[in-house]
């Protein structure tokens, strides 16, 4: 099951890439755990995860071709 990950704002600055694909993850929480293990700078950062443009929680399931977005606090307007 392949998913696409996209990062924005401050979170994109912390990660080595802004957009990539990965697989083997079943929930948004599993992705969060994997990322924070790999990039310790992510820990303590506030960010929401959106799955297919809807705000998700850690239990939200990922599906084949899901687009998962890492969203730091909004600052539009």
């Amino acid at each position: 099951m392949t998913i696409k990950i996209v990062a924005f704002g401050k979170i994109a600055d912390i990660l080595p890439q802004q957009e990539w694909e990965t697989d083997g993850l079943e929930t948004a929480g599993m992705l969060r755990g994997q990322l924070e293990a790999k990039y310790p700078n992510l820990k303590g950062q506030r960010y929401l995860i959106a799955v297919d443009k809807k705000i998700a929680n850690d239990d939200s399931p990922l599906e084949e071709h899901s687009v998962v977005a890492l969203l730091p606090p909004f600052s539009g307007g």
Partner: protein
Amino acid sequence: MEKQTINTEEKPSHRHKKVFVEGPISAAFVGDSIAKHSTKMDIGAHSIFLGQVRKDVIESQEVVAIDYSAYAEMAEEKFHEIREDTFAKYPLTCMHIYHSLGKVNAGEICLFVFTSAIHRREAIDACNEVVERIKQEVPVWGKEIFDNDQHRWKENK
């Protein structure tokens, strides 16, 4: 910049409208938008909110611009949802929302929310609510660019 005006007979809320504009929103564009409403004879009140980039000083560095980025696909869905909800809640004649992407210098306008109604209460309350929802719900980020080329990611209060 969109040239169309909304025809109230064709369910304005159901049209997807372009919100993002590249760079700052000019004062002349705001003036032109107002002028287009002079043919709408049932409007009694317009409420307008404009966000302008401040030259804040943060630890002795001066903000010279904000560089806006967005998760465009999600932001457009959110803008549409806010638009639909607001038309459902308030008896509005028109609503227009424009938000900048890219670089907006200090003193320039980055957000333009424009609501019109028969009476003032609806226009004012709707404008207010749209602005609050944009700040809280729409995935847009502002990167404050300092005069020494450093930057800092802004956070809305």
